[in-house]
């Protein structure tokens, strides 16, 4: 009886040892990536969360004694609530911080609502076009559409600024086509704080003055009228710019997915007598669903974090209408000596993006199951 055990035991240990050995080798291979992940991602995120509960000014060396005080949830309270009552009954106002935060959230939301659907749709259309067999010079078109995506966003922003100045290419071109559009009535693309929805309403004679009292109701620091402004003309310009630069990347992703759809599916549909539109609606689009999810998620995250175009073109102006949440993080951290507040703003942005991604995942996977 004892003998088989004696025989079996070394075999078991070698297996376990081998497994350990393998696991160790595996971790060794992953180590460089893990270390980078830890040092450049996990630790900074942890530090940001920690700092968001402090009043650090971002200047005093962070490891110095007394560089910051723990302030608990004060930063979040200032951003989200605006004012609060101290223990001694004193009312402390932080309405500017709250107002700025919700202005930036409003601007970012309009930005996301405008850019994400547009760029996804346009990218899909472009991908389908450059995927057509009959198209000549495919390589040229693919490169041309992809080109803006690989060019520096700062350079592109500066070129856009030249094109969109009041007497610039865009206005003079429109002016050449439409006779009534001259230097007296040129749109000031880069410096017009009026909201697009406000402008449209004005065409129908609806203004703040005659729309009724409900427009003056304040919620979260802004009047209802302000909430309904739509993106400003300047924000619209930046939205056009960003759509143009990102559709290339999205197109390439769609293109890869399109080429992965087996031709047998299309042939089967064609034999069943489906026309081109029907094939597109009922074969291509459903089969692209995982890719669409990916593209929309990428778009959402990118749009919520929009920063460099704003930094180059408008610095949040005119009249704070291009102030986005990411730009506000920068402003609080570097212009206002309030790094703790900046960290809190960043954490809230993170939560928003995370929530939207989850929500959208839920939505897309439910649809996929039907």
């Amino acid at each position, binding site marked *: 009886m004892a003998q088989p055990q004696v025989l079996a035991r070394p075999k078991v240990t070698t297996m376990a040892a081998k497994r350990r050995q393998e696991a160790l080798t595996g971790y060794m291979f992953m180590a460089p990536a893990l270390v980078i992940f830890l040092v450049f991602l996990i630790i900074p995120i942890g530090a940001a969360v920690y700092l968001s509960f402090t009043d650090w000014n971002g200047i005093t*060396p962070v490891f110095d004694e007394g560089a910051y005080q723990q302030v608990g949830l004060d930063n979040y309270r200032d951003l989200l609530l605006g004012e609060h009552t101290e223990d001694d009954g004193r009312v402390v106002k932080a309405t500017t911080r709250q107002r700025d935060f919700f202005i930036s959230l409003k601007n970012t939301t309009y930005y996301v609502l405008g850019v994400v659907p547009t760029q996804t749709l346009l990218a899909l259309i472009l991908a389908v076009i450059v995927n057509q067999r009959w198209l000549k010079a495919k390589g040229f078109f693919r490169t041309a559409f992809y080109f803006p995506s690989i060019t520096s966003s700062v350079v592109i922003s500066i070129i856009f600024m030249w094109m969109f100045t009041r007497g610039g290419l865009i206005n003079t071109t429109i002016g050449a086509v439409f006779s009534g559009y001259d230097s007296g009535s040129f749109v000031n693309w880069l410096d017009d704080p009026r909201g697009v929805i406000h402008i449209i309403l004005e065409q129908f004679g609806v203004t703040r003055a005659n729309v009724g009292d409900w427009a003056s109701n304040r919620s979260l620091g802004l009047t209802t009228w302000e909430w309904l402004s739509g993106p400003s003309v300047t924000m619209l310009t930046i939205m056009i710019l960003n759509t143009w630069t990102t559709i290339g990347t999205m197109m390439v992703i769609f293109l890869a997915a399109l080429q992965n759809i087996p031709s047998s599916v299309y042939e089967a549909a064609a034999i069943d007598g489906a026309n081109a539109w029907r094939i597109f609606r009922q074969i291509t689009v459903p089969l692209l669903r995982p890719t669409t999810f990916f593209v929309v998620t990428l778009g959402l995250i990118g749009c919520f974090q929009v920063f460099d175009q704003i930094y180059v073109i408008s610095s949040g102006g005119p009249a704070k209408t291009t102030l986005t949440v990411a730009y506000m993080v920068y402003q609080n951290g570097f212009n206002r000596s309030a790094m703790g507040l900046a960290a809190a703003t960043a954490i809230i942005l993170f939560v928003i993006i995370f929530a939207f991604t989850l929500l959208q995942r839920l939505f897309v996977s439910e649809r996929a199951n039907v």
Partner: protein
Amino acid sequence: MRKLSVLTLVVVLALVVSAAGAALARQNVEITLMGWSSSTEENDALLAQVAAFEAANPGISVNVQLVPEYDTTIQAAFASGDSPNVFYVDSSKLPDWAEAGVLASGEGMIENLDDHYESLLEAFTYDGTLYCPPKDFSIMALQYNKDMFDAAGLDYPTPDWTWDDLRAAAEALTGENEAGQKVLGLVTPPNFERWLPFLYQAGGSVLSEDWTEVTLDSDEAREALEFYIGMVNDGIAGPPSMVDAGWGGEAFAQGRVALAMEGNWVISYLVEQFPDLNWGVTELPRHPAGGQASMVFTVCYSVASDNDYPDESWQLANFLTGPEGSQLVAEEGFGVIPPAISAADTWLEAIGPEIGEGFLAGAEYAHKWQFPVGFQDVFDTFNADLQLAFEGQYLAEDVIIDTIGVAEEVLAR
């Protein structure tokens, strides 16, 4: 045995090398000077100043770092405890950085106090402590396009012009150029600091002397703001973007405005890039009641509080801002005015008195560009409201009420 001797040798060698290194380091101190990059001429002049300092102080070498995105870069350096020894501080940033404790006090360390303008030293005094010697300064003045004045048959502006003269000239000079583009009388950037001279000229103020109370709720403030906004609403003035320019100097250089109120930074821009432009400069106009005011924008050389070589750092800062260092800059004759009073004549000579005097005259009565920590919120609110007021959506009164609200909130923080 052999192994041991090799080890001993290595250890001994290492000790010798490090000791020699330490001795060398003591003899040759390297201090870091950080600033932002200006024009090529200005950078070269700084390097020449530094070379003169190194020649006069053997044993001290200076590592000059002119960085882009200065505020961000140096803030990261401060935060990580890796501050340069000497660095630029803009007067508007002084309160933030002094509060954060990254600046060494200059009390008893700054030399040549008599040779500095009182208004500049005041700009670098925070909470009763003088922090740093001024590096250079710029003063807002009135630039006018001579050709446009000639064409309209108007007399050139003079230092005793009042707001009424300014308005009348702007009105007369508004029109169109040959290309059919809109030309405005005056460029009015939608910025708090560009409006402040009008407030001060009218006799108003933003804060009480001790920075504890907001004093914007005044007739003077309303008058000054209504004047500024009124010119825009009447179509005789406007922000740079209205005439396709990024800033006032550009609008002026391209002949799209007849009058601009820039500081002396505009000199090298106009002289180098628009040599054909026929322009002159004089002091800012006065309030009809005679009140005179301008703004001074200035930068200093500050010494870091966290510093291995404080004495050498002060030596450098004092040299760069002293009579000798100032002369070196003044001779080059570019835009910014050197800090030492004794170098003013050299600067005027180099830049040309007819241009220099218009700017320099303001040194007597200019106000500093400096407000308490966190006032950026106030500027942003004011600027945003001002833009809406330019569009006719806000009244001066709305702007003032908003600004007071934010200023009081910031002071209570």
